[in-house]
């Protein structure tokens, strides 16, 4: 049945073509040799310098590979991650190259056989990014390659710190609390947090957990959803204690993280708050929210301080990155495009544009933005990088965890409740 209908369509098409040829406006037979491969590529670059970089990359790749068309589209990050890609994968009509989130979501996608293993196609590329590849691997096979990876820290207003009499960025939790006190005294809102979006608030708890739990405990949590260690409850207790010092802005439960002047990033961008705990992308977000659309001169960065006397590694960092992978049925050119995206030239261009921290070490030298350089240094100095917990645990557990933490922020529920909610969610898997 199927074959017959294709033949019919082909017949119809050739009849149509013949008619066109007879009419004398047939296209000149030039690129008949090219096999006419079209690659669709979905990424999360919608603002800042990155869309232009990807557009250029697509054009260059097309030029070097005659007959290949690259259709690249940028979508808003959460939209892409939570709606577009899951739906496209489930409907069997996935884009060829797309943003693949590491950790739990990658494991789900691999389990459903949606992704192409890349180890044989581009071994050198995988080699080139070093240990940052780990979160994109399942059972030793690689399903995505990160083009950027960075860690979280404080983005702060150096001028306000100086006015409040803080000479050096805090290196311990006590110093951080002391600094927020000084900032309050000087009339500033010490810290902005976008608890309305839940995850930015949750990152505070992640940091306390990271600095309270041993690396082995963290590992066990990620693979077996084992949250029995006391350190998970301790993280909540530390957070509660920290919340008691009133470090955040008014009405933080309703504040979004990255959209508009009233968001937590906007508060820092407009000098209404002194610092924000946020990932490596935040310089760009803050820059986009200032009146003149540039990263403010006063913006500085320092890593999350260690916590004295806790089991966690004081130099551990929390981080994450963006990577691309190919869908199961993508043409082989998909891996070639990924290889090109990860080439030193493109990585250097990516770094120079100030869009983020490249994963290929040699490209780090091309970083111009001083804050990104600071983050890259922090990443290099970190003894151990933990992937964002919600990403690492996957959507179901991650979502329940974030909700529990925001409850804690709002004074509803206890540190134990957060762990209970995580365990309950894990039990439904």
């Amino acid at each position, binding site marked *: 049945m199927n074959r017959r209908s294709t033949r019919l369509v082909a017949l119809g098409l050739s009849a149509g073509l013949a008619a066109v040829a007879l009419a004398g406006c047939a296209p000149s037979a030039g690129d008949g040799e090219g096999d006419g491969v079209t690659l669709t590529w979905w990424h999360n670059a919608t603002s800042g310098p990155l869309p232009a970089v990807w557009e250029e990359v697509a054009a260059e790749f097309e030029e070097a590979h005659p007959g290949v068309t690259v259709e690249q589209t940028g979508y808003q990050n959460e939209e892409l991650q*939570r*709606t577009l890609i*899951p739906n496209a*994968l*489930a409907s069997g009509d996935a884009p060829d190259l797309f943003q693949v989130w590491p950790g739990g*979501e990658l494991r*789900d*996608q691999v389990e*459903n056989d*949606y992704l192409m293993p890349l180890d044989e196609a581009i071994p050198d590329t995988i080699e080139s990014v070093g240990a940052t590849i780990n979160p994109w691997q399942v059972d030793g096979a690689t399903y995505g390659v990160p083009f950027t990876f960075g860690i979280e820290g404080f983005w702060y207003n150096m001028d306000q710190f100086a006015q409040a009499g803080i000479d050096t960025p805090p290196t311990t939790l006590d110093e951080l609390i002391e600094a927020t006190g000084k900032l309050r005294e000087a009339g500033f809102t010490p810290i902005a947090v976008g*608890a*309305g979006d*839940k995850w930015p608030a949750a990152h505070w708890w992640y940091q306390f957990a990271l600095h309270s739990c041993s690396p082995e405990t963290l590992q066990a949590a990620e693979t077996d959803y084992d949250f029995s260690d006391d350190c998970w409850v301790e993280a909540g207790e530390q957070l509660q204690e920290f919340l008691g010092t009133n470090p955040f*802005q*008014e*009405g*933080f*439960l*309703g*504040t979004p993280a990255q959209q*508009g002047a*009233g968001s937590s990033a906007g508060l820092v961008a407009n000098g*209404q708050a002194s610092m924000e705990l946020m990932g490596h992308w935040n310089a760009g977000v803050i820059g986009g929210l200032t009146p003149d659309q540039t990263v403010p001169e006063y913006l500085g960065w320092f890593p999350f301080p260690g916590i004295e006397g806790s089991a966690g590694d004081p130099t551990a960092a929390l981080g994450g990155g963006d990577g691309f992978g190919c869908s199961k049925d993508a043409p082989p050119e998909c891996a070639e495009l990924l290889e090109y995206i990860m080439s030193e030239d493109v990585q250097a261009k990516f770094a120079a544009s100030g869009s983020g921290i490249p994963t290929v070490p040699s490209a780090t030298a091309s970083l111009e933005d001083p804050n990104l350089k600071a983050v890259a240094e922090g990443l290099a100095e970190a003894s151990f990088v933990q992937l964002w917990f919600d990403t690492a645990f*996957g*959507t*179901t557990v991650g*979502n*329940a965890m974030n909700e529990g933490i*925001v*409850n804690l922020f*709002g004074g*509803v529920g206890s540190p134990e409740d957060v762990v209970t909610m995580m365990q309950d969610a894990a039990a*439904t*898997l």
Partner: protein
Amino acid sequence: MATLLESAGPAVSAGPAPAPPARRRSAARRTRAEIALFVGPALILFLGFVILPVILAAVYSFYNLPQAFQWDDLADPARFVGLENYRRALADPVFMGAVGHNFFILGMSLLIQGPIAIGVALLLNRRMRGRTAFRLLIFVPYVLAEVIAGLSWKLLLQPNGGVNALLEALGLGALQQNWLADPAIALWTMFFILTWKYVGFAILLMLAGLQGVPEELAEAASIDGASWWQVQRYITIPLLGPTIRIWAFLSIIGSLQLFDMVWVTTRGGPLNATQTMATYMVEKGQFGGQPGYGSAIAVILFLISLVIALVYQRFALRRDLAGAVTRGVR
């Protein structure tokens, strides 16, 4: 079958069928073909995009499904959980809170928006200067896209936003609030935004209904010495009854299905203070990676809406809709 044929046999052999019925039969067949032709595409779309999803949601609601699930998952007996998703929803304080919020909005809409709409419509129905301008002003919020209206209010109501700045400028700084960020008042703020948005539509409906109220009755009553208020109370408002009942029906269904405005302004927060059934469904089903649980919520929302709609039609709308909904075109 055989007996049927046998019994049919003699009847046919009794004589040739008269010509007119045959023609009538073919005409009837053609009518049926026409109906099939014209209704067919719409019916297929309706079955495919309305009925099928409803059935699928009901099926999914009995399973514990991963975020990006495949058909195979439905065949996996380990994934079948029976009524567990429903039990979980009914035991979840957040979901029960969301149901409460829906009914809060529903009750408040009827109690507050209705009287406002009727009052304003009665005032605007009189000849007065600038009537058109008033009508336009009241109706503009309804014309505005929900997302745009929601985002505008979100910006105005944030802690350092326009509303608080206005209060400060008016010397009412003490009244400043975290309108959408304080769990204690967020739902009231949400109700205010909804009223601002939808009262114009209610007023428009009431004005349209007032056009159907004969002026002669009011004239006769005032000749008999009835005051303006008495005319409204005993003549106009009772005659406006059908319009009010239809508006209330739309308002009830809208309150139960409330989603867009909440999603763009608070996304159900802070601390689930403005969570509705629909936002909770999307939060869990789409963003929480639990399509099975989300489907169970969708089914509960569907059942609540259906039952309320049927009961309302049966008891409140029976006279207004006699023949229109239940018995087809006459």
